[in-house]
């Protein structure tokens, strides 16, 4: 009897593994096809989003700001991430990263930057979010919480959801900051530039409360960047920053 039991078990195992291996080499649906259709879907959504929110892509030769942004984009690069930089004509002082390797810079924050190095710091920070996969971590956390709560609509559940969904967590912001520091040092720019920018924005924050909400612990962040000594950066750009700002 025991022998027959083991024989049955082996039969089951062989059937399972056999089916799996067979379908791997003679697939019903090829994974390449699935990936392609997924990528197509993703580009479609991206294009719709760009159209809807009227983003303008950097690198095109149409306006001064786009050319300038294109130059900055080539400067701030990462070997793993191939991202697109967009300009949004909104006076909100904010810049953000979107899934699909998109970084969007608003007019508002460009006007606040006294030098291109500060904007490079902002781009590097957003690139950090993309590189460290913060969006997917967000998604998974939300999914996990939804699964745990699973239809039990309680106040605590709603509060947790809102707190975790609205912005990146503070740890993620700190990680992106560290990435920005590294990137700036690679480019030979002192991270103190960002400290200057944040100090300026913080003193203006009573006029722009949402900046404060999405970036808590401003004091900690400013002190992190202030630790680095300030040195004038030796980078040269083909554009005149003041002229570019005036064109907006």
């Amino acid at each position: 009897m025991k022998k027959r039991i083991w024989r049955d078990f082996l039969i089951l195992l062989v059937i399972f593994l056999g089916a799996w291996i067979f379908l791997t080499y003679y697939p019903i649906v090829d994974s390449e096809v699935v990936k392609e259709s997924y990528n197509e879907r993703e580009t479609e959504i991206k294009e719709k989003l760009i159209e809807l929110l009227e983003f303008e892509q950097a690198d095109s030769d149409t306006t001064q700001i786009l050319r300038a942004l294109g130059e900055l984009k080539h400067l701030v690069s990462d070997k793993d991430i191939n991202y697109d930089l967009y300009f949004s004509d909104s006076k909100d002082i904010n810049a953000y990263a979107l899934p699909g390797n998109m970084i969007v810079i608003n007019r508002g924050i460009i006007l606040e930057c006294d030098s291109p190095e500060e904007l490079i710091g902002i781009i590097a920070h957003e690139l950090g979010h993309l590189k460290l996969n913060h969006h997917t971590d967000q998604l998974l956390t939300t999914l996990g919480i939804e699964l745990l709560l699973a239809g039990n609509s309680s106040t605590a559940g709603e509060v947790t959801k809102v707190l975790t969904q609205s912005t990146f967590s503070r740890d993620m912001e700190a990680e992106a900051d560290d990435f920005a520091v590294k990137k700036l040092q690679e480019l030979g720019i002192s991270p103190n530039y960002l400290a200057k920018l944040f100090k300026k924005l913080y003193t203006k924050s009573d006029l722009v409360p949402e900046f404060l909400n999405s970036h808590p612990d401003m004091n900690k962040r400013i002190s992190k960047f202030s630790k680095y000594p300030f040195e004038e950066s030796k980078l040269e750009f083909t554009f005149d920053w003041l002229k570019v700002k005036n064109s907006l």
Partner: protein
Amino acid sequence: MNTDYYPIQQPEDLPAREREDAMGAYFMMFASLAAGLPLPVINLIAAIIYYHVNKHKSRFVRFHSLQSLLSQLPVSLLNAGLVVWAISFFKYDFNFDNTFLSYLIVVILANLLYLGFSIAAAIKARQGLMYYFIFFGKLSYEIVYKVKEEEEQIYRNNPPI
């Protein structure tokens, strides 16, 4: 056949209540539907609890509960593996390959087979019949119906000194 197995009860000896209990074992796979959470582990827990509760009833009921539990185990493990593998794609970009897709298909087929056989077994159990799954049937029969010798209690109570 062998004298070291308990005899199997025949359908006419089984009252309606036992048949219903045996049938109920195969419905524990719908437990996660009932509880509202889409986690496959709930089915497994429900099957374990059901077996534990019905262990002390007749061997017929015990056999079907055990068979349901043992066959639920690999299905739950495969489903859990699928979920973990799928989530890992979120983290490391969607570069799944044919191995994953074929695993997905095989797991779906396994679930369907399990569903079909369980329903067939539930119907048979209600009729008072034994129904043996391919590997789990023999294993459950071996565990439930084999005559085991009672081990003597070798521990005796003694005063503290």
